[in-house]
């Protein structure tokens, strides 16, 4: 029978390696922490909190695997003592996770139906410990006052805690390392100690004013004032949505801790790519994420965020939702920067260090900031510059400089993605004033196909021109075009740049001189057969957004047409 046991109970042989030595180690720690209350002990406790949590997790798994408390106590006789000591350690009980794990371990030891003296005693002990933890006072004066003043314990402790937090917050605000007085003792040690002490209190809502104050402390000293553990703990609490910080505190957190910034950017990306949102919704999502505001305040944050965008785009350059996000993000960022600008005087170059300098201001200027008559010249110039830049790099790289060449092309393209309002302006121009469409088409093709793999760009340019000409002819006939003429458009998804063609289509539908009914029908037919309803709606919405924002007030006719087309598309769902 004993030979069969290992086979029938594989759990016991494959147990987590909870050996007696580890138990002893942690018990010794717990004893040491309980005995002294010096700064060193406190520091030691804080340093070990993470590992302690892991150990408690292991313990919990171990306890759950046991069939009875008696068995657990037999295997780990020191367990009771250990858990008991931890209960009285405020660093363990202040933090949500560690307290929870500790309590779970205790529950694990409680037996619903105790079958022997050991289990009965364990039950009693557990109840007693819990009662003491929640109701006993070790401060005699506090006890006396509470009793005679009729103040319940909870209210009292809450008041004291709030008061302490306020006091500490004041201290943090006061202490500033003044470089002028070298003799003055650096108070950064206090800040460091406070931030260390706050590690177990990250998820305690009453402590959040203090945490906010710590984060927003101006960084004046050479030494790093906030402890690593503090920032790490904040970061992980934030990513598991356990943390609520005020705006400025959050910005400060990102500034202090890059991982938390990365987390924020990635989660924004995720939320954008998972759902199809209208341009307005996207704008709102981006603004609400607080990232543009943070980037406007700290150049370094903007640079890091853009690096993340770059790497995402490099992996999937055709990803339209990411491209829209980048464009919206840059718009929001520039808006926030303009709000701050009177106070700061950081040049644009600092925010866009890798972009071609000659293109920076021309691209960042919005079409709405320029009279519509100058668009063509501007776009022609842009197109020419882009072409020159790309050809330079691509041709001068038969040798090892190939990666460098592509680097410059990529940066140019990335800047264009950030300033895609000019791409949209180009589409509008192609539709409204069709002369000399060459440069505009080149610009569009570059936007949709930045990499010139196997020199396909020439081909793609041809395809774009064909699509544009076809659309022009379709929309210039004042009667309803026969179905066969629309056939080639119907195979939209497989054409060179479906989105290029789609945006041309939508713009034609809006701006052409044909009666609305004709335009509507053409749009409806093509979109229905190609299945790109959502994408078309998006293009329409962003067109509307762009037109209504800028001072280039298109006439009411255009807005009316847009509204009608939107209605049509909505009904197609």
């Amino acid at each position: 029978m004993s030979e069969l046991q290992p086979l029938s109970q594989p759990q016991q042989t494959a147990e987590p390696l909870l050996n007696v030595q580890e138990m002893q180690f942690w018990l010794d720690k717990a004893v040491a922490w309980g005995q002294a209350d010096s700064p060193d002990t406190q520091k030691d406790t804080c340093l070990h909190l993470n590992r302690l949590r892991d150990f408690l997790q292991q313990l919990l798994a171990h306890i759950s695997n046991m069939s009875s408390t008696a068995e657990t106590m037999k295997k780990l006789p020191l367990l009771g003592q250990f858990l008991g000591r931890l209960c009285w350690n405020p660093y363990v009980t202040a933090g949500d996770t560690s307290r929870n794990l500790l309590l779970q371990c205790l529950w694990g030891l409680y037996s619903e139906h105790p079958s022997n003296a050991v289990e009965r005693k364990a039950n009693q002990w557990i109840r007693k410990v819990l009662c003491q933890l929640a109701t006993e006072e070790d401060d005699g004066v506090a006890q006396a006052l509470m009793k005679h003043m009729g103040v319940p314990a909870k209210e009292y402790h809450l008041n004291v805690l709030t008061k302490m937090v306020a006091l500490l917050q004041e201290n943090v605000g006061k202490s500033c390392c003044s470089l002028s007085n070298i003799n003055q003792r650096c108070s950064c040690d206090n800040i460091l100690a406070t931030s260390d002490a706050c590690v177990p209190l990250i998820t305690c809502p009453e402590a959040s004013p203090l945490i906010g104050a710590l984060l927003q402390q101006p960084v004046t000293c050479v030494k790093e004032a906030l402890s690593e553990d503090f920032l790490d703990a904040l970061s992980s609490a934030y990513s598991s949505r356990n943390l609520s910080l005020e705006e400025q505190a959050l910005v400060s957190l990102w500034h202090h801790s890059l991982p938390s910034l990365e987390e924020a950017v990635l989660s924004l990306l995720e939320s954008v790519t998972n759902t199809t949102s209208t341009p307005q919704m996207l704008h709102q999502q981006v603004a609400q994420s607080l990232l543009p505001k943070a980037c406007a305040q700290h150049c370094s944050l903007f640079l890091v965020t853009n690096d993340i965008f770059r790497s995402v785009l490099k992996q999937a350059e055709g990803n339209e939702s990411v491209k829209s996000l980048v464009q919206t993000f840059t718009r929001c960022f520039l808006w926030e920067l303009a709000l701050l600008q009177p106070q700061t005087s950081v040049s644009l170059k600092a925010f866009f260090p890798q972009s071609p300098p000659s293109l920076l201001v021309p691209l960042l200027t919005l079409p709405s900031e320029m009279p519509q008559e100058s668009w063509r010249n501007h776009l022609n110039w842009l197109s020419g510059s882009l072409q020159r830049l790309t050809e330079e790099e691509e041709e001068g790289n038969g040798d090892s400089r190939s990666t460098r060449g592509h680097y410059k092309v990529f940066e140019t393209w990335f800047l264009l993605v950030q300033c895609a309002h000019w791409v949209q302006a180009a589409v509008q121009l192609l539709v409204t004033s069709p002369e000399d469409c060459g440069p505009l088409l080149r610009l569009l093709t570059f936007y949709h196909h930045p990499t010139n793999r196997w020199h396909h760009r020439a081909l793609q340019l041809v395809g774009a021109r064909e699509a544009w000409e076809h659309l022009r002819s379709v929309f210039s006939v004042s009667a309803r075009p026969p179905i066969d003429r629309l056939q080639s458009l119907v195979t939209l998804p497989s054409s060179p740049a479906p989105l290029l063609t789609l945006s041309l289509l939508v713009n034609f539908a809006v701006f052409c001189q044909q009666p609305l009914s004709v335009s509507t029908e053409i749009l409806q037919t093509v979109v229905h057969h190609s299945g790109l309803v959502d994408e078309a709606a998006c293009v329409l919405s962003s067109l509307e957004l762009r037109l209504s924002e800028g001072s280039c007030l298109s006439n009411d006719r255009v807005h009316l047409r847009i509204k009608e087309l939107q209605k049509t598309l909505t009904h197609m769902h």
Partner: protein
Amino acid sequence: MEAVLKNLSSTVELLAVAAYSGTVEQWEKYNVSRAFDWARYCEHIYSRYHSNPAIRRVMEQQLELTNQSLQDVIPGYTEVSFSDLPRLQHLLLVGLLNNPEVPISLLKMLFDTRGPVDNMKSEYQDVTGLCSHIIQCKAACKVLSPLTELSAAGAEVQGRMLMERLGALLSRGSDTRPAEHFLGCVLQECEGAGRQFCLVITAALLTTKNSAAQTAPREFLLDWLQNKHSVLQSLPATLLIDLAKEHKKFRDAYCDVLKKWASDMEYIISEGEWVQTSTNPTVSFQKLTERFMALFEACPSLRAKTEKELKALKISDGDFDVKGLSVWGDLLSALNM
């Protein structure tokens, strides 16, 4: 009023059930929530009516009746008095946690980590995580206290509460006995923690310094302190000077304390110094002189009067001008009088 009394009585009975009875075995979360709600109701009743002597009396009578009937049925029953009412939720919690029949699932619920605080929608107060929160607050205080001045925050909160309570007691009427009784009880209970009590009094006096609303309790406290030399002598010197400046009566009382300290002193020939003979020497001769000087600086009017008194005392000691024979003489010369 009848309904209120009935509710009061029922709640006390409910508390007794929670603390002593085996019926709690069948309780579920909503039973607990409802019990806390009723306890909170009684706390509210207390705050509304405690300053109304007539209603208070009626309630006390009701409580007496309820306590009596419960005592008959439950061995070891602890009475719930009127002054316990403001802490009824706490008493309920203590009762529940001490009752071995409370099902473990309820305990788990009380000690659960609370979720986002959004309990406006439920019918009853959400008691999930109640104990967890208390433990967290207490632990957080302990974690943060090494960073703050020793007990400063605690003392300040306690001081504020003390003054509030005094104010409430004094606003009831002209009878100052309850207030005296309160202070006396607290002092007695803090016997072992004398220093902490002084910190509380200090905080209480400091925080109400410029508060117009708190003049009555402040005056009362100062009056009370005059006779409590044991507390007075442990208060910080600067505070005492400030208080002496403010109040004539206090000024005289403080002066009396200083004189009493002087009279306790004996001259030790081997050290050439006057030293206090009491079991807890608080002050050296040097410090005593400093205190007198500080007092005279703050209250110049006191100087002449005290000089006369000290001179009289010196005369009663024999009026010698030799050092070491009369503390009063030495004091006078140290003070340049």
